C-alpha cells in the first residue's frame, strides 16, 4: 500500500472492545477472572460462528436471516439422529450437512429464481423454525451419548472446544477470503456484480458458496447449542442469536451493502457483543437492558466506522501530532505495515476521498501483513 493506506479496518472496533473490557473490569472484580473469560468466550461462540458465516453472505451484498432457526433445525436433527442410534460423530455430521443444505437452498433460490436474499432467507427462517417443532410436537429431545458433550463442554488445556473450533474456522475463512481466487471473487461480486459477471466470475457459484458457508456455520452452532445442554430444543436459536450475528458483523465493519469487511472484524464484533452481555450479567444489570445497550453499541460502532473510513493514516498521524509541522512523515508503528514501493508514491494527496463503503482489500494487502 502506498502512503494513503488507511487505518486497519478493525482498529475502531478493537478500541471499543478494549474500552468496554476496561470499564467492566473496573465495575466488577469478577469480570477479569479466568473462569469468567471462559464463560464469556463459550457463550459468545455460537453468535461468533453465525457472524463468520454472515460475513461471507454480507460481503456478496446479501443477508442471511435463516441462521437463527437453522440452529434449532440442525441441533434438533442431531439429537434425533442420536435417538435413532447414530453415533455422536454422525450426529454432528448430520447437523453440518443439514445446515449446508439449507444454505444451498437459500443460495439456489436467490440466484436462480432471482429473489431478494431478505425474502428468501426470511422464508427459510420460518420453515426451519417450524420443522423441528412439527417433527417433535414441540418437545425437547435429550441426548444420551456422553461423547456428544465433547463439542460443547469439552476443553483442551483449559480452552473450551467450541472456542478452538471457532479459531480453526476463523483461520480457514481468512485464508479463503484473502488467499484464494474465490475470496477475490466474493469481494468483487459484492462490489459490483455486473462487472464481475463480465470479468467471467461465476456469480451463481459464489452465491451458493457463501450461503452454504453460512449454513455450515449455523450447523456447527446447532451442534454446540445441543451439546452444551445435551438436549435438543426445538426453539433454540430463536432468541438474540440471529440479530446478534448480523450486529457482530456490522459492528465489526462488514458493510451491509457488500464488498467491504473482514473476518477479523466480524470476530471482534462478536467478542464485543459477548463481552457486553457477559459484563452486564457480571455487574448485575437486569437482562432487559441488554438489547438497549447493544443497540447503542451498534450505532456507535457503525458511526465510528463511517468516520474512520474518511481518515487516511497520514491525516490520522497529523491529527495526533498536530503540533508537529513535519506532518508528512511516513506513518510509523503498528499502524503502518511495510510499505510497498508503488510507483504512485509521489502522487499528490489531491485525489478525492472515496465514498464510505470502499474497501482497502487487495491481494497485496494481506501479503504485507
Amino acid at each position, binding site marked *: 500500500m502506498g502512503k494513503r493506506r488507511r487505518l486497519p479496518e478493525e482498529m475502531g472496533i478493537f478500541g471499543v472492545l478494549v474500552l468496554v473490557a476496561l470499564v467492566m473490569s473496573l465495575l466488577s472484580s469478577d469480570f477479569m477472572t479466568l473462569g469468567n473469560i471462559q464463560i464469556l468466550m463459550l457463550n459468545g461462540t455460537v453468535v461468533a460462528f453465525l457472524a463468520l458465516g454472515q460475513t461471507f453472505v454480507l460481503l456478496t451484498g446479501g443477508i442471511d436471516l435463516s441462521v437463527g432457526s437453522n440452529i434449532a433445525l440442525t441441533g434438533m436433527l442431531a439429537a434425533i439422529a442420536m435417538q435413532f442410534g447414530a453415533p455422536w460423530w454422525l450426529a454432528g455430521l448430520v447437523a453440518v450437512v443439514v445446515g449446508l443444505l439449507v444454505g444451498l437452498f437459500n443460495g439456489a433460490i436467490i440466484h436462480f429464481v432471482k429473489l431478494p436474499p431478505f425474502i428468501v432467507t426470511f422464508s427459510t427462517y420460518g420453515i426451519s423454525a417450524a420443522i423441528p417443532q412439527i417433527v417433535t410436537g414441540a418437545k425437547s429431545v435429550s441426548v444420551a451419548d456422553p461423547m456428544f458433550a465433547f463439542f460443547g463442554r469439552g476443553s483442551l488445556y483449559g480452552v473450551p472446544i467450541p472456542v478452538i473450533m471457532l479459531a480453526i474456522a476463523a483461520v480457514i475463512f481468512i485464508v479463503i477470503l484473502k488467499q484464494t481466487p474465490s475470496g477475490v471473487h466474493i469481494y468483487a461480486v459484492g462490489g459490483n456484480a455486473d462487472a464481475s459477471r463480465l470479468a467471467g466470475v461465476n456469480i451463481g457459484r459464489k452465491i451458493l458458496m457463501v450461503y452454504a458457508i453460512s449454513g455450515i456455520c449455523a450447523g456447527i452452532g446447532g451442534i454446540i447449542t445441543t451439546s452444551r445442554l445435551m438436549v435438543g430444543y426445538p426453539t433454540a436459536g430463536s432468541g438474540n442469536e440471529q440479530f446478534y450475528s448480523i450486529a457482530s458483523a456490522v459492528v465489526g465493519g462488514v458493510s451491509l451493502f457488500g464488498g467491504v469487511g473482514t473476518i477479523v472484524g466480524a470476530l471482534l464484533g462478536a467478542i464485543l457483543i459477548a463481552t457486553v452481555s457477559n459484563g452486564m450479567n457480571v455487574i448485575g444489570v437486569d437482562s432487559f437492558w441488554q438489547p438497549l445497550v447493544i443497540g447503542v453499541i451498534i450505532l456507535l460502532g457503525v458511526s465510528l466506522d463511517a468516520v474512520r473510513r474518511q481518515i487516511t493514516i497520514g491525516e490520522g498521524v497529523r491529527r495526533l501530532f498536530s503540533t508537529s509541522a513535519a506532518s508528512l512523515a511516513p506513518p510509523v508503528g503498528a499502524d503502518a505495515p511495510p510499505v510497498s514501493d508503488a510507483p504512485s508514491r509521489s*502522487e499528490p494527496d489531491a485525489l478525492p476521498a*472515496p465514498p464510505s463503503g470502499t474497501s482497502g482489500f487487495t491481494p497485496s494487502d494481506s501479503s504485507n501483513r
Partner: protein
Amino acid sequence: MTEQVLQAVGIRKLFAGVPALDGVDLTLTSGKVVGLVGHNGAGKSTLLKVLSGAYQPDGGQLLLDGAKVSFHSPAAAIDAGVSTVYQELSLLPNLTVTENTFLGRELRSGGRLDKKAMRESAQQLVDRFRIEADADRRVGDYPVATRQLLEIAIATSRNARFLLLDEPTTSLEGDQVEQLLKLVRGLAVDEGLGIVFINHKLDELFAISDEVVALVNGQVRIQGPTDRINRAEVITAIAGAEIPEKRVAGVPAGSTVAPDAERTVVLSVAGLRSAELNGVDLEACEGRILGVYGLVGSGRTEFLRTLVGLLPPSDGQITLFGDDYRPSGPADAQNRGVVYLTEERKIDGIVPGLNSITNVVLPVVRQYTRGGLLDHRELTRVATDLLTRLGIRGDIHAPVVTLSGGNQQKVLLARTLAQKPRVLLLDEPTKGVDIGVKAEIHQLLRTLAHEQGLAVIMVSSEEEEILEVSDDVVTFVLGSCDGNPVPASDLTVQALRQSAWEAA
C-alpha cells in the same frame, strides 16, 4: 434586451493547498457562448462550480453587471439567474416532466397544487424548445438525448440569464448533438442568455462558441474570439504535447499502418440475429482494427455483447479461428481468446471498492495460484506491469474509484490485456476520457493490432475516432450490418454520417 455581464475576476480555488484554479478571468455576456476546453483536471468543472455557487472561491471575485456578488449556495446562484446543467442527468426519472419543472417551486391555488397551470406551463416550455416530450409523462420514459434537452430547458425556465453547461453532448450522438447545439445557439441568440459550454469535442465547441477559452492547470492559456483561434494550437496547449490532429482527408494520422499483406480472417459472423440484431455479417482480420459505426440503438453494443455470450443469438453462424463459436458467457469467450471492454465503466466495468491491481487481475486470478492459494506477488507484478505500460497515473493500491475517469479506463484496458486476448472487442474505448489519454489509448490500439497481430473490433460514436484509429469501417443500421468493410482512408466524417442515416 439589456446586455448583462457575469464576470469572474482572478478566481482562485485551492484543494488541500493545491490550486485547482489559479487566477482565472472569465466574462459571460448575454447573447454570447463561451466555449471552455481543457484537460480533465484542468479546472473547468471547478470553475463552473464557483460560478454556480457550489464552491466558494478562495480568491478573486464575481461581478454581476459590475456589482460584486457572492453565491453562497447553488440556490443563490439560481436566484441571481445563473443556472447550471451538469454532466450527470439530474432530473428525477420517476417524476413527470411537469413535476421536474416545478420541483421545489410548485404552483398553488388555494393551498392545493395547481396541476393544470403547471402542466400547461411545462408543456409550453417543452414545445418552445421543440422537444418531443409530453409534460405528463415520466422523465425516465424518455431516452437520454431527450432528457438532456429537458435538463437544459428546465434549467433555463428558472428565469435564467446565464447558463453553464458541463459537457452536455457526451451521451448524445449525431443529429442529437446537432439538435442540442442548435438549441444552445438559439438560447444565446434569441433569448439572450450568456452561456458557458464545456466540451471535449472541438468540432462542436468551435461550431457553437463566440469565444474560446482553454484552461491549463487552473490557468487561462488561450482566450479569444473563436474565428481567430487556431485549433491545433488549442490541442497542443491542453494536451501538453503534440497530439496528432485529425487527419484532413484520408491521410493516416497514426504512426503505424496495418501491413497490406494478405488478410487472415479470424472471426467471421454470418446472418447473426437476436432480439436486437437483424442479420449481421462481418469479418475481423488478424492485425487490423475494424471500426464499427452506427447510431445509438443500431445494435453495436448488443452485437459485441452477443460475441462474449452476454446476450443469446437466435440465428446465424459465428466462426472463430475456423471453428464454430457459440460462447456461453464471458469466461468461455475469454478461454477462446475473445475479450470485451464495456462501454459503461461504472455499471459493469470497475469494482469501485477494490484497488486497481485486483481490478486488473479479476478475470484471471485463477491462473495465478500455487496449491490453490493466490500468488500475490505474481498477481501484483502482472498487474503493475500492465498498468505501467498503459501509463497509469494515481495510486494503484487505492480503491480504483479514487482514480480519474481516464485512469479507470486504463485499468479496464489493462484488465482486457491481462486476459491475453486474440480478438479484442472494444465498446467506446475512450468514452469520457480527456484528449491526452485518448491519444494514448489510440496509440495502444494501433500497437496491439499492427504489431501484436490482435484482431480488434472497435465500436465508437465519434466519427473522428473511427476514422483515425480504424483500418476498415463497417456501419450498423437498425440492427443489421452488411459486412462490406470500407477502408477508413476512403471515408470522411460526412460519408460516415450519411451511411448511418441514409437507411435509418
